[in-house]
C-alpha cells in the first residue's frame, strides 16, 4: 500500500507533430507509431520499454511524443524538422507533465474528472483527452512501475497547457494531499 503521490515531471523533451505525412515521417525516423487514434505506445520495442520515448496518437495525423529523462531521441529527430519536410508540421509542446500514482488515485481522479478511469482496460493502451477541473488534459494510464519508480499498479501520466500548469498542479495536489498523499512540484 502506498499513499497517492503527484509529481511534476519537468526534465523531458516533448514534441508534437501534425500533418498528413507526420506518421510516415516518424516511421522513417525509426519511431514506431500507434496504429489508431487515442492510443499510445513506446517508440521502440526494447527490453525496458519505458526507456523509450512515449508516442501518443492524438488523431489521424497528430502526434505527441515525450522522451525519457535525459533522452536524446527527440533532439535527434527534431534536427531534421528544420528541413521543413512537406506535410509534417512541428508543434511546440511545452506542456507541464505530472505523474500520479499510489493508492486511492481513483478517488483523487473521481474528484477532478468525469472519466471513469477505474473502469478503463489498459490492453489497448488508451489515451484520454479530457477536462480535468476545467483544464484540457492528456492522460495516459499505465501499469507501473515505469521509470518514475514506485510500486506496481495503476499510474497516470497527465499533460496540460503550461499556463494552466500551476493551477492544475496546485489544485490536483491539494486533492491528493487531502486523500492522504503528497505533491512534489512547484507552487506559484
Amino acid at each position, binding site marked *: 500500500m502506498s499513499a497517492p503521490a503527484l509529481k511534476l515531471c519537468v526534465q523531458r523533451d516533448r514534441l*508534437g507533430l501534425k*500533418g498528413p505525412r507526420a506518421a510516415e515521417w516518424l516511421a522513417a525516423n525509426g519511431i514506431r507509431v500507434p496504429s489508431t487514434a487515442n492510443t499510445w505506445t513506446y517508440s521502440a520495442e526494447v527490453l525496458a520499454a519505458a526507456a523509450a520515448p512515449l508516442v501518443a496518437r492524438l488523431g489521424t495525423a497528430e502526434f505527441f511524443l515525450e522522451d525519457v529523462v535525459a533522452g536524446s531521441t527527440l533532439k535527434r529527430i527534431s534536427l531534421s524538422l528544420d528541413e521543413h519536410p512537406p506535410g509534417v508540421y512541428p508543434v511546440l509542446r*511545452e506542456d507541464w507533465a505530472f505523474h500520479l500514482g499510489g493508492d486511492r488515485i481513483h478517488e483523487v481522479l*473521481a474528484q477532478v474528472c468525469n472519466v471513469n478511469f477505474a473502469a478503463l482496460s489498459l490492453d489497448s493502451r488508451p489515451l484520454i483527452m479530457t477536462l480535468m*477541473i476545467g483544464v484540457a488534459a492528456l492522460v495516459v494510464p499505465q501499469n507501473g512501475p515505469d521509470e518514475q519508480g514506485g510500486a506496481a499498479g495503476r499510474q497516470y501520466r497527465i499533460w496540460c497547457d503550461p499556463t494552466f500548469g500551476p493551477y492544475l498542479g496546485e*489544485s490536483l495536489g491539494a486533492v491528493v494531499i487531502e486523500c492522504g498523499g503528497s505533491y512534489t512540484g512547484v507552487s506559484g
Partner: protein
Amino acid sequence: MMHRLEVHAGEWLDRSVAVRFSFEGREYQGYSGDTISSALAAVGMPYLARSFKYHRPRGILSFANHDSNTLFQVDGVPNVRGDVTLLREGMRVTALNTFGGLWQDKARVLDRFARLLPVGFYYKAFHSKRWFPHWERMFRALTGLGEVNLHAAREATPKRYGFCDVLVIGGGPSGLSAALAAAQSGAQVALVDESPRLGGSDAPPALVRAVQESGSITLYLATIAAGYYADHWVALASPSRMTKMRARAVVFATGVIEQPAVFRNNDLPGVMLASGAARLLARHSVAPGRRVVIIAANLEAYVTCLELHSRGVPVAAIVELRTTAESHSAVTSCAALGLPILQAHAPYEAIRGPDGAVAGLRVAPLNAAGRVDADSSRHIECDAILMSVGWAAAAQLFLQAGGSTQFSEGLQQFIPTELPQGIFAAGRMNGVYDGESRLADGRRAGSQAAAHAGLGVPSSAMVARSARCPSHRFAIIDHPKAKNFVDFDEDLQVKDLENAAQEGFDSSELLKRYSTVGMGPSQGKHSNMNALRVLARFRGVGVDQLGLTTARPMYHPVPMKLLAGRSFYPERRTPIDAQHAALGAVWMPAGNWRRPEFYAVSGESRAQSIDAEVRAVREGVGIIDVGTLGKIEVYGPGAAELLDRVYTGRFSDLKVGMTRYGLMLDESGVIIDDGVIARLAEQMFYFTTTTGGSATVFRELQRLNALWGLDCALVNVTGHRAAFNFAGPFSREVLQELTDIDLRDEAFPYLAVRSGQVAGAAARLMRVGFVGELGYEIHVAAGRGSDVWQALFAAGAPRALRPFGVEAQRVLRLEKGHLIVGQDTDGLTDPNEANALWAVAMKKPFFVGQRSLRILQARGPRQKLVGIELAAATPLPKECHLVIDQGAIAGRVTSVTYSRALNKSIGLAMLSPELAQVGRDIQIRVDNGAMLAARVVAAPFYDPKGLRQKAGLGA
C-alpha cells in the same frame, strides 16, 4: 402536547448520551440520535416556527425534511433542515423569519390582516410606479427565511464523480429489491436514500441485510437525488458533498409523499401528517400528543392507529372521510380495540388552544353528496391531529428525466406511463402499494435495468398496480372563514387558488406562477396535488386534464456550498508570473488569465506608478508580458487561402518576413477579433489574437478549415509560447545586445518579422507599434520565457528599463487611437463604424462577413468611433458613460484616460454619425447626472504620422 415515550427496541436514540442545546435562547436537552425537530418535539415545544406570510405558529408537519416548518437558524447557518439534522452538543437554534423572536413575533399581527394580502398582492402592489420603492422596501424587510452571515468562513466541499451500472433511487422495499436484483444480475449498483438508514418504513429486515451485505451495492444514505441531467447523470446531495453519478440505467423507487387534508386551521401546531407521526414514534419515541385524532381515508391511517395504541398513545377518534373503510385486519383491529371510528365524517375546523397549538377538532358528518353538514358538527378534544388521507407520487425527478405520467382515477395518483430509455419505475411511485407486490415490482425493475446495462436477462414479470385506492379524491373542506391551507410554505388558502383561477390564471403553470403555489422550500411536495384538485373543481374538469408541472433541478433544496464544491477556478499564468510577483505586480483578471495591472513601487501611488511606466516607454524602454495573446500557427499549401477567407485583409500576397494587421468578422459583418499575422515561410504563418479570443478563434478556424477542406493545419501555441512587447526609443539598442538578428531599419523594417536567437533562445521577433514607439514583440518557447525576460531586464537596466502593466498599455495605445476589440467595439460594430475599413480588402472574392459588410456599407453606419478630448480640469468620465444630445442617448465613451504626454484627457467614443464630426462639441452624462463637455477630434492623438514606431524617432 408531544412528549417522549419509554425506551423502544427499534428507536434510533442512544439515551446514555444526553445532548444539550438551546432554542430561542433557552436551554434544553435531547439524546444522541435526536434530530433538532425530534428533540424539540420531545421537550413539548408547542410550536417551532412562524409561517412565511401571516407569521402563524407552525409545528412539525412531515418530519421528512420536506416542509418549511422545521427550517432553523443554527449556529449562524440559515435554513438548516431540522427534521434530518442531528442534534449536536451546544447547538444554538433559533426560529426563522421572526421579528422579536418566535414567541413575541411582532409580525404575527399580519395574520389579522390576511384579507389585505390576497393572492398575487405583490404583483398588484408593484403595479404602481409611485409606490414601487415603498413596497420594495417593505417586502424586502418582511420576506426571506434565514439570515445569511456574510462573514461566514468558506466551507469548501469536495465534489466527486460516481459511476455505476444501475442507480436505484429510493431505499424502501421496492428500491431494495431492485438493487438486489440488479446486483444479482452482475451490475454494480448505487442505492440512494434520503434517510440515514435503509428500509423505508416497512422493508423486511432480511432484505435490508441482504443489500447491506452485497458487495456490488454501494449505499448513499442521507443523500438526496436532487437533479437529473442528460444521459442518466444524477446529482446526489449528501450532507458533506455533491456526487455526480453517471449510471447506465436508473430505477426510480422514489415512493410517495403523504398529502395533507385541507380544512380550517389545518396548519396549527399539532396537526401533522400521520407518516411523520409514525416516524417520530418509531425512530425517536416521541408521541404526537396525549390525545390524538386521526383523519383517515386509507388503510395506512389504521396501521398508524395501531402503532400509537401499542405505544400507549390514546386515540380519541378516527375521523373516516369515506363511508366505509376497506376490509382489512388493521381496520378490524382498531374496531376491536374500541377506537372510535366516525364514518363519513370530515374535519371542519381545528381549534387553537391558549398556547397557540391545537386543542381540539370540530368534526362534521358528510352527506350523501360528500358535503359537510356544518350544523351537525361537534367538538373532539385533542392535542394532536394526524392526517392520513392520501399520497402523491414522488415523481419530480422522474419527470425531469423525461418520463411522463398520467392521472389514475382508480389510484388518485399520477403514475408513470412512458419511460425514457434506461429509466425504470417501481413501487408505490409506480402505483404498486401492497407488500409483496412492491418487492416483486422492485425485482422486475432491477432486473430490467441491469439488462439495459447489458447484464443478465430482463425479467418478464408483470406486476399489477394496487386495486385499493390509497388516496381520497378530495380531502379538501371548505369553510366560510377560510384559513384552510393548501400550501404551508406560502400561506396559500383554498380561496387564494380559486381567486387566482378566477383572475384567469387557470392552468397549472399559470396558477403556480401567479399564486406561488409549490414555489417555497417544499417545492410543492405537499401542495401541488391539492392545488390541482382545487383547480380541477374550479374548472369543472378532472385532474387528468390538468397535468403536473416539472420541477427544475435541484428539485429539493441543497446547500450552496455543495454546488460550489471546492470552487476551482482555472486560472492561467504566463511563464513570467513569478517575476511579475517579485516586481510587485498588482494583479487584474483578463479572461481567465491573471495579468499585472501595474507594478507597485514603494513611495508611489497607483497613478504615479502607471504614469512612470508610460513615461519609461515614451522616453526610455519598457517591457510588458503579452504572453496572454492568442498565438496560432498555420501550415500548409492552403494556409494563405485560409487566412484570406477568415480575415478581412489579404494575406496571400504578404511577403515572407512581413506582418500585417488582421481583422476578423462574424457572418453578420461584426468585428469579433483582431491581431497581427506574420508570414514565416511560403506555407507557414504565425498570428496573434486578442487575449480573450484565442480559444474561440482557434476553434472557429478549425471548424472552418474542416468545412472548407483546405490543405493546411492549425496549431494553437498560445500557452506554449511566452511573448513580450519590448518598446521604447532605446528598445533597439538594448535588444541588439542580446540577439543575432540585425535590428537596423534596413534589415528589420517596421512590420517585419524575423527569427533568430534572443538571450540564447530561439525567438520570433515582430516589429509592431501597438504602443506607438519603436518596439519588438519577442516570442520564445514558454520554457525559455523566464530566462529571456531576465536577460532583457538586465540589459535594459542602464536605460532604466521598467516593466509596464495593462493600465499603462491602455494609456499608450489610446494615445495612438488604437481600438481594443470588445472595449471600443461591441456586438454590433462593423469595420466601417470602427474606422477600420483600411484593413478590409473588399475586392477579395470572399471572406467571412463580406456579404453582410456590403449590406451594412450600403446602409451606412449607425455609429462611428471617434477621438474625443476633454477641456482642461474636466473630471474624467467613466468608460461607458453616455453621450447625450438633445435629451437623447447619442453614443457612449468607450475609452478614456489622462495623457501626460499630451497634457490633456483623451478618449474614444462611439457616436451617432451626426455627432461624429471633428470639432463637434458633445455632452457626456456622468454618474451624478452632471454633464461634461468634450470635443470630437482626430485620432491618433500622439505621433499621428507614426514616425516614432516606424522610424524609431525619439532615441
